[in-house]
């Protein structure tokens, strides 16, 4: 075996280890620009690894990696199937694109002696997120989830306003409750199955499925994941966290945190349990679907009424999370594929919007951006305005943007399941999206009146990041066949009657 092939074997671990190694190096380096460069390189490295893995997994199927050489199900197994590798690409791609533009914005918003800590926290968050996706071990998943969450709390707390601290605290309390719920669920499952390996669990679960313990475990897992995901009644932490976090961190959160939580939910309800099991005597699909619909409508409605741009986008994220959950609640391959695709598309769209907002804030100063502050933006920062419009159209789901494709897929899935009420809800939510997006666009193109705001385009780095994300958005909207195919294969693997290879 050559050295390179040897290294290829180790990619599932390297994926997670790379940012884990880079984080302490960041703390040691301290120099803001060096640290930023290292973070970029690391996330790009992760992206490279994820793509390499995808090239292996899509044609050949699941990769199983025995951590520390201990064979599964006894040791910790890193198990990469189509869905996980899809998510790996989403997360590392979003992280790379956002980090590339982060340098100036972070320098402007964070005191110089803390920048290296911020990047270290970002890398730890990346470690956690990638770990969650890669691991096949339920407890390991919990640990990574907490690593990601803890670094996120710290990142939110670095916001410039004092309210960032309160937002971070709120997030910490609810996030910890969510994490602990997942811990309980994992414990109960371990009680019933005697294993922590999720694949193993899935195989041992059917005989004991009818027990209260197994059902309680599912309830705990779903609620825990829903808390991290900010599914509607459990959403209160999210708007504040997104609003008061440093601008670029908001972009990262929007692109990564909730998306990973959505992955966790999918893993629980399809990887361990299976929503389609008839023995599962719970109306879980309906509950999830109703919550999703409530999120789509209510959150969009609240978004329409917001005056602060980041908060508006945060509420819009809540609505978009509704789309994702609605798709996966259908328990069909088409629905799950639509959800998966929307995870990617929404990550790209929302990250683009938040980075654009960061660019505006970079020129404007301050840490919150009222709609009224946007007046005259189309004159001073025409390119940024164009990016905001492109992202907004993506949120609405206008054709040729990524949002259209996933919405189309979701509509298809809904019609296929004959759930017409949900179709109506989806359309109603899109209409609300039109309104809130239009409020932003109208604010951007409004004339400044007497006030003469001097504005220039943001620095090149931010521009680059914005346009990379917008280009992704448009590319995914125009040439969506590959994304759709990957998402369909990912959901197909998860819903296959005999999921995965034998242990």
């Amino acid at each position, binding site marked *: 075996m050559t050295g390179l092939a040897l290294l290829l074997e180790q990619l599932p671990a390297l994926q997670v280890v790379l940012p884990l190694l880079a984080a302490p190096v960041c703390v040691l380096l301290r120099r803001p620009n060096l640290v930023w460069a290292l973070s970029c390189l690391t996330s790009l490295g992760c992206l490279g690894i994820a793509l390499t893995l995808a090239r292996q997994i899509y044609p050949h199927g699941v990769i199983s990696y025995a951590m520390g050489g201990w064979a599964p199900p006894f040791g910790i197994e890193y198990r990469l199937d189509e869905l996980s590798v899809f998510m790996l690409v989403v997360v590392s791609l979003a992280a790379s694109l956002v980090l590339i533009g982060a340098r100036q914005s972070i320098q402007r918003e964070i005191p110089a002696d803390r920048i290296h800590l911020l990047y270290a926290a970002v890398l730890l968050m990346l470690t956690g997120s990638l770990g969650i996706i890669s691991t096949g071990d339920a407890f390991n998943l919990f640990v990574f989830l*907490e690593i990601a969450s*803890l670094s996120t*709390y710290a990142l939110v707390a670095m916001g410039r306003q004092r309210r960032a*601290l309160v937002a971070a*605290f709120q997030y*910490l*309390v609810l996030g910890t409750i969510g994490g*602990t719920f997942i811990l309980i669920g994992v*414990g109960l499952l371990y009680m019933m199955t005697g294993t922590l390996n999720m694949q193993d669990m899935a195989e041992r679960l059917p005989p004991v499925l009818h027990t209260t313990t197994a059902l309680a475990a599912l309830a705990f897992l779903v609620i825990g994941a829903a808390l991290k995901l900010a599914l509607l009644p459990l959403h209160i932490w999210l708007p504040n966290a997104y609003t008061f976090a440093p601008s670029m961190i908001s972009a990262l959160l929007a692109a990564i945190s909730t998306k990973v939580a959505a992955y966790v939910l999918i893993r629980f309800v399809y990887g361990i349990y299976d929503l389609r099991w008839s023995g599962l005597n719970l109306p879980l699909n309906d509950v999830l679907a109703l919550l999703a619909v409530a999120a789509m409508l209510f959150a969009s409605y609240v978004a329409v009424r917001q005056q602060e741009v980041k908060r508006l986008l945060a509420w819009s994220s809540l609505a978009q999370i509704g789309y994702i959950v609605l798709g996966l609640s259908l328990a069909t391959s088409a629905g799950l594929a639509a959800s998966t695709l929307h995870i990617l598309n929404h990550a790209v769209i929302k990250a683009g919007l938040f980075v654009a907002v960061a660019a505006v804030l970079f020129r404007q100063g301050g840490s919150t951006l009222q709609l009224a502050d946007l007046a005259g933006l189309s004159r001073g920062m025409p390119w940024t305005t164009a990016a905001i419009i492109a992202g907004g159209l993506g949120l609405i789901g206008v054709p040729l943007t990524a949002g259209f494709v996933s919405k189309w897929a979701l509509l298809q899935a809904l019609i296929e399941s004959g759930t017409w009420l949900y179709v109506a809800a989806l359309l109603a939510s899109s209409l609300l999206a039109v309104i809130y997006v239009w409020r932003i666009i109208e604010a951007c193109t409004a004339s400044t009146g007497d006030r003469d705001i001097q504005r220039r385009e943001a620095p090149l780095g931010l521009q680059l990041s914005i346009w990379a994300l917008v280009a992704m958005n448009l590319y995914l909207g125009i040439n969506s066949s590959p994304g759709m195919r990957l998402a369909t294969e990912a959901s197909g693997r998860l819903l296959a009657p005999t999921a995965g290879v034998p242990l």
Partner: protein
Amino acid sequence: MLDAILGLFNYWIAIGLMMTGLYIVIAHTNLVKKIIGLNIFQTSVFILYISMGKIQGGTAPILAEGTLIYSNPLPHVLILTAIVVGVATTALGLALIVRIYEAYGSAEEDEIVNKDRRA
């Protein structure tokens, strides 16, 4: 009935602690108390795990002459990790409280909300 109460006493303790912890988190406005509640809540889960690993008549899982039944060490190991996570969370939570106190002059949630509203 009695069996359900006494035989499963470990679960009852865990549930009791869990509810106590959650109640404190929800009901108290003092941020430090919230963290304490959170800790109690987490501890209940630790107990749940550890009691799960105990096997009646089992000894510590160290190979020794004459013992055949061992308790399951795995939950302990897991919980050790979970405790570390809990400590990290607590530390971060407390650090945030200190900074919130410095910024607002208070660690009571309602006062903080009021101050933000006025600002």
